[in-house]
């Protein structure tokens, strides 16, 4: 027989799912922008995040400033990285077939990861000081929220709004959308599509490195951290619909909730006082449900929930 207060498990899991969902959505935002404009799947996306994490960490430690103030630095690094990658590498890949583009970004992923390994070594590094580092507070009902995740979630909403406004309310956004719909047509209409592609890589890079600099307040970084985030970002982008900004946000929340399934399971375990449920290893498979959702959506609705690209 189990006798514990259970509402905090339910509310705690709900909150945690929403917050981690927004964090993951922010990670996936850059991927969906790049895909939306250029139809390129960037396998090196997680490595961009890793570079953002190292930028935040090293800038904070090197200059002795709070990690929060490193966000603009990470943004600039990410923007430049995106633009350099586009002009130095991606532009040439576009001439080749789809497979060349896939393998090309895969190669970029391996290159960036090994470069990081060479420069930073394989140890986990983490921030020890900062306004948000290690801070959390209780919001009632025994639910504890991490300050970093809350800030990250807030910034995620702001970033999504900003990108949505950029894409839908500005001339640049219209030019980006035109490029993504029909690059040749846009070129005929005088849209500098090369610059638009570079801009998409720049914005995509900046958004993910900012996410990296933000989450390094909580997570430790090593050169191998990228892959896990790339996988989750892929699942989010596929669920939400390739190239859809609101879709990525919504799918981020769904994925966040899915990763909290073990919490909901605990809630039902204690609610029904079902001892047999205790032994079901839900936590062991928490990412499996994410990829299962990815698989199901690919079968049922290949363009994703909000996708408009066929």
């Amino acid at each position: 027989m189990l006798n514990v207060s259970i509402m905090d498990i339910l509310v705690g899991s709900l909150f945690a799912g929403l917050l981690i969902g927004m964090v993951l959505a922010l990670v996936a935002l850059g991927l969906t922008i790049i895909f939306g404009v250029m139809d390129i799947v960037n396998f090196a996306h997680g490595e961009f995040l890793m570079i953002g994490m190292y930028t935040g960490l090293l800038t904070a430690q090197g200059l002795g400033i709070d990690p929060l103030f490193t966000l603009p630095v990470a943004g600039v690094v990410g923007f430049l990285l995106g633009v350099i990658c586009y002009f130095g590498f991606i532009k040439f890949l576009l001439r080749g077939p789809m497979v060349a583009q896939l393998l090309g970004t895969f190669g970029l992923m391996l290159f960036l990861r090994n470069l990081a390994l060479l420069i930073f070594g394989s140890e986990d590094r983490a921030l020890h000081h900062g306004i948000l580092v290690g801070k959390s507070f209780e919001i009632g009902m025994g639910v504890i929220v991490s300050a970093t995740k809350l800030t990250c979630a807030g910034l995620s909403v702001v970033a999504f709004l900003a990108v949505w406004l950029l894409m839908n309310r500005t001339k640049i956004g219209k030019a980006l959308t035109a490029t993504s719909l029909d690059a040749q047509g846009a070129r005929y209409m005088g849209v500098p599509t090369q610059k638009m592609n570079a801009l998409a890589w720049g914005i995509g890079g900046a958004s993910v490195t900012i996410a990296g600099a933000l989450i390094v307040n909580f997570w430790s970084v090593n050169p191998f951290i990228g892959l896990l985030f790339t996988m989750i970002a892929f699942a989010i982008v596929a669920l939400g619909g390739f190239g859809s900004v609101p879709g990525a946000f919504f799918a981020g929340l769904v994925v966040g909730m899915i990763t909290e399934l073990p919490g909901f399971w605990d809630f039902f375990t204690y609610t029904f006082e079902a001892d047999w449920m205790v032994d079901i290893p839900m936590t062991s498979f928490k990412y499996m449900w994410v990829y299962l959702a990815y698989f199901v959506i690919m079968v049922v609705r290949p363009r994703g929930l909000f996708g408009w690209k066929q």
Partner: protein
Amino acid sequence: MKSMLRSGMVILSVLAIIGFIVPSGALAVKEIKIGVIYPLTGGAAAAGRELRAGVELAAKIANSGMADLPMTMAQNKGIKNLGGAKIKLIFKDHEGNPTLGADLAKKLILDDKVDGILGCYFSSVTKTVSAVCEQYGIPMINGSSTSPALTKRGFKWFWRTTPHDKWFTKDLFELLVGLTKGKVQGVKAVPKKDIINLASACEKTEWGSHVSGLIKEFAKEYDFKLKKSLLYAAKSADLSSEVRSLKASRADVMLFASYTSDAILMVKTLKAQKAHPKIIWGQDAGFEKPEFRSTLGDSISGILTRTVFLPKVMDLKKLAGQVNKLYKEKTGNDLGGASARAFTGLQTWVAVLEKAGSTKPAKIQAAANALYIPGKELVVPWQGIKFSTSGDELGQNVLGSGLIGQYQKGKDGKIGLEIVYPFDVSSADMIFPFAGF
């Protein structure tokens, strides 16, 4: 005079012929090649560096001798019974990958023609590498893999010096029982109901799953209630749902089996989620690494970890202090569980070769099965090394033992590990209950 000259010419001719026929190497001092397979890159690279340094130091002592160290290996320059042959180490990096480990073992055996293998730290890699050694009939000594299953396969070419997780996990339950009986230094007897509820979170690997199973087994045997037992994906990006699940179980004692990055993330998440169990215990690995201490700082005060070696051992054993001095000169760090056991692993290899007086696998096998190294010759606090040759744990050292350490702030303000178990070698009062983060 003529006959003397003729005799001289004959002798010279014979020597010249011998010189041509016999390869030059046969008359030189032979080299003994030991293949050493460790995780030198990847997530466990820090541990890999410690392991490597431990083995290298042991090889240096064995090859060049150090008369003031009271161990047989340090008295001979090389393997005495093999004409002073020197140990040559060939390092390979398994990157934590069991398949790669097996490939490397084959390469070492077939291409490098090693006389034996030492490794591999990760139980999962030790499992595949030892299977290759068994297939080729090449002896393998393992110094630091603690999955109990490794010595339960009836292998004839595999010997393990370190005590394994079953012993370590039993130590933990002995400590809990000791707490209820007032045996722990500085703590009055605690009613069992105060520490009866346990919860465990172990990584989903061969090692972690075994530890999780052992905790279940011993909880039943010692009559504790295991409220939650979860396995999580190793190298996780986020452990908050796991920690919430542990908290929801309202456990008094939380038990973990994690490597470095997960151990750090787990404790950070416990702190962020304001978890407040009475005891936090880690099954070595990540909980004992220098990064764990340097990253988490003072917040780990009160956390327990099982270990096989602590700097405090040096106060108990003079030899450990002497070897530690050499290790510190080499690396700048103190000996730890990984390096001390790696050192002992190679020391065992040297003793086996010395006893065998040959590099023939069959002779080495016989020597290993009859080996005895007394505890006074070891840096680790064991009674000695003697391998089991019958029963269901073939090749397991039966004279090993574990320690449980607790992170405490010393007089110098630095966080360090104090021995709290075995009770008779306690180096400080135990902090109980855990004061919170």
